[in-house]
């Protein structure tokens, strides 16, 4: 049917009216339950370890501030902070965190706690990587060209893995072959892939303890001091992003590094095993 | 009856559809008040003629003059397959009246009246699309009649109906004509044409080869094409 301009405009008008009416439904949706909340960009490993589920209710009960955690890789979390989409960052890549503050995106970095990385791999350990020396383990895996799953997602864990390769004298970017598999995804998906392919992988202990789909994988390398994984917390700079909830955000940070918060962190256990070791106030 | 200008006059009417000349310089004049049956073989252009006169198809060339003065006659059309809206029989008639600009307060009574005249009062509240084929075609006639057209076009209105339903439709068409509406109808049913027609227009290859009073046509068609058509259609004769 040929349409007159008038009919077209009348229809368009009706359309806009309908869309506006529908949008009103959206706008009048009841406000979020908690008016006082902060958004924390954190890492998949902390979220998936179950720490937040344990920790946050304690803080929320005490302060009345709800904490909304967006779990991302450390790289993505830092970017979220740079864009001003979070109030607080809770991540684990000290080098990048220091730079974040130095560049003016964050106010001040507080060390909070550490956990440790482990190397998991198939029970029969074809590369004979088992031991307590992470560099030796990686060298053996590379020498045997045994399957290894890397997160390759610019997360804190990925950054740590790259540091270990370098320290072991291996230029992974150059030496990687088909045995080195880059999943480009979070810790859990990478472990799912490793479990499916019976491959080695570097993971934080917390995620591993919470991980169910282990298949034939077991911990092979652990206990090396170099495997410690330091977490830091920072307020996103309100000077750059005026909407940042600085009082509430700082209140959360202050609580985390307070004796009470530190004790709470130490109290989180899976199967009686402590996952995170508070070390606020140190120079880590 | 044919005093003054004809109700409708077509001159040199040509319609080209998809590269085919469906109408090819057709001339036709329709006096008021009569019942005209348009006959012709498949593809002769019967349906296209009705649609063009009714304004659904734009002529490629030629012109249509109404009343000799250009005032388009109030008109309606009934198709082979009635198209009913998903609402009650009554609401279908009311819809047509609303489109025609009939004020709301009188629509229902006029619609009920039209349904009564085609014998559908009992199913006024039923959903139009669940009515039988014959009932739906009578509803289409009621919808057209309610508009009080000066001229009504019918394109093979009984072609998909059983004989009983077709007879009902014929009765209604006759009643509409008796009430003063000009009828222009196509059919392939020669018995029906004899019963309903005052005059016959015979189409061949997009032209009207003759326009004759019905009695004369069936006895002595003027054009050889019409003679052949009648023979072919009536082998038992």
């Amino acid at each position, binding site marked *: 049917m040929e349409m007159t301009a008038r009919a077209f405009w009348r*229809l368009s008008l009706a359309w806009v009216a309908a869309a506006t009416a529908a949008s009103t439904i959206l706008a009048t949706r009841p406000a979020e339950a908690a008016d006082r909340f902060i958004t924390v960009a954190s890492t998949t490993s902390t979220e998936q370890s179950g720490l937040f589920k344990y920790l946050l209710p304690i803080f929320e009960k005490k302060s009345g501030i709800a904490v909304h955690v967006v779990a991302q890789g450390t790289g993505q979390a830092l970017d979220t902070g740079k*864009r001003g989409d979070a109030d607080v960052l809770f991540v684990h890549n000290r080098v990048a965190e220091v730079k974040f503050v130095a560049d003016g995106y964050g106010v001040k970095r507080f060390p909070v706690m550490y956990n440790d990385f482990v190397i998991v791999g198939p029970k029969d350990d074809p590369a004979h990587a088992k031991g307590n020396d992470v560099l030796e383990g990686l060298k053996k895996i590379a020498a045997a060209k045994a399957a290894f799953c890397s997160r390759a997602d610019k997360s804190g864990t990925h950054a740590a893995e790259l540091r270990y390769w370098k320290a072991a004298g291996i230029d992974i970017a150059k030496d990687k072959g088909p045995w080195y598999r880059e999943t480009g995804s979070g810790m*859990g998906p990478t472990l799912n892939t490793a479990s499916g392919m019976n491959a080695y992988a570097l993971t934080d202990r917390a995620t591993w303890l919470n*991980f169910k789909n282990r298949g034939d994988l077991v911990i092979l390398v652990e206990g090396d001091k170099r495997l410690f994984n330091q977490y830091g917390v920072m307020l996103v700079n309100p000077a750059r992003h005026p909407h940042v909830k600085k009082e509430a955000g700082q209140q959360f940070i202050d609580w985390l590094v307070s004796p009470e918060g530190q004790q709470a962190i130490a109290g989180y256990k899976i199967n009686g095993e402590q996952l995170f070791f508070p070390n606020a106030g140190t120079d880590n | 009856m044919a005093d003054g200008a004809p109700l409708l006059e077509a001159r040199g009417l040509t319609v080209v559809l998809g590269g085919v000349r469906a109408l090819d310089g057709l001339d036709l004049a329709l006096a008021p008040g009569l019942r005209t049956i348009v006959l012709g073989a498949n593809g002769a252009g019967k349906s296209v003629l009705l*649609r063009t006169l009714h304004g659904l198809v734009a002529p490629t060339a030629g012109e249509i003059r109404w009343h000799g003065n250009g005032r388009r006659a109030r008109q309606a059309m009934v198709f082979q397959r009635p198209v009913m*809206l998903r609402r009650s029989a009554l609401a279908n008639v009311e819809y047509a009246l609303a489109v025609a600009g009939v004020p709301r307060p009188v629509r229902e009574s006029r619609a009920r009246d039209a349904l009564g005249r085609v014998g559908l009062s009992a199913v006024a509240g039923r959903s139009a699309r669940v009515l039988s084929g014959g009932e739906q075609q009578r509803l289409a006639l009621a919808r057209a009649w309610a508009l009080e057209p000066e001229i009504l076009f019918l394109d093979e209105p009984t072609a998909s109906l059983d004989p009983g339903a077709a007879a009902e439709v014929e009765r209604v068409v006759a009643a509409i004509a008796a009430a003063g509406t000009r009828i222009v109808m196509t059919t392939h049913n020669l018995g029906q044409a004899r019963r309903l027609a005052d005059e016959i227009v015979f189409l061949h290859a997009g032209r009207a080869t003759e326009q004759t009073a019905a009695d004369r046509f069936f006895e002595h068609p003027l054009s050889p094409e019409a003679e052949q058509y009648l023979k072919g259609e009536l082998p038992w004769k």
Partner: protein
Amino acid sequence: MFEILSSFEIALGLITHADAELWGIVWLSIELSVVAAVIGGAMGLPLGAIVGIARFPGRRALIVVLNAMLGLPSVVVGLVFYLLLSRAGPLGEWGLLFTPKAIVIAQAALVVPIVAALTRQVIEDAWAEYAEQMRSLGVGTARAVRTLLWDTRFTLFTVGLAGFGRAASEVGAVMVVGGNIDGVTRVMTTAIALETSKGDLPLALGLGVILIGIVLAVNAAAYGIREWSARRHG
């Protein structure tokens, strides 16, 4: 096979012993998807109807764009809205990123093309049937659109349900703009993604079974409505 069976067992357990948290997730999924379907429908329906009936310059291009948007990866849609809604983006002042409203916006954007494309088909088919009769009666475009929308209302309702299904099963965009925040923007699909990444595949699939159940119920309702309307209205 054993894992799939045990997933159904877990799903059953989840339903019978549902805790507030699970119901919260299920309810949030339904609520957001309904709102998204309503908004996406309110925009996609007239769009599809106009494209189905009217002939105007650019119509073909619009159809191509609409059809292409059907296959648009949802994560791209999510990314676009992430950049729009981010504090550093043009709509950052609204502070919608990582809120349920952001999810609704992204879902609605995904619902619009599917509703518009299906509506166009429905209206075009109906128009093919009605066009001559409508023009014979002298019906204008605006009234023709209204009439067709009304006459195909039951089919269009099922189109709306298809939009709901699209919204409810959406994960990529929802994850990106919602952030999968526990108790705030965690819906069924992102919860499934989370449980999968935790390696708890049976629980993930158990949640999936509940989601499938909801979508199944919606489709059964759609089917029932069509059957009923066919009997009632032909």
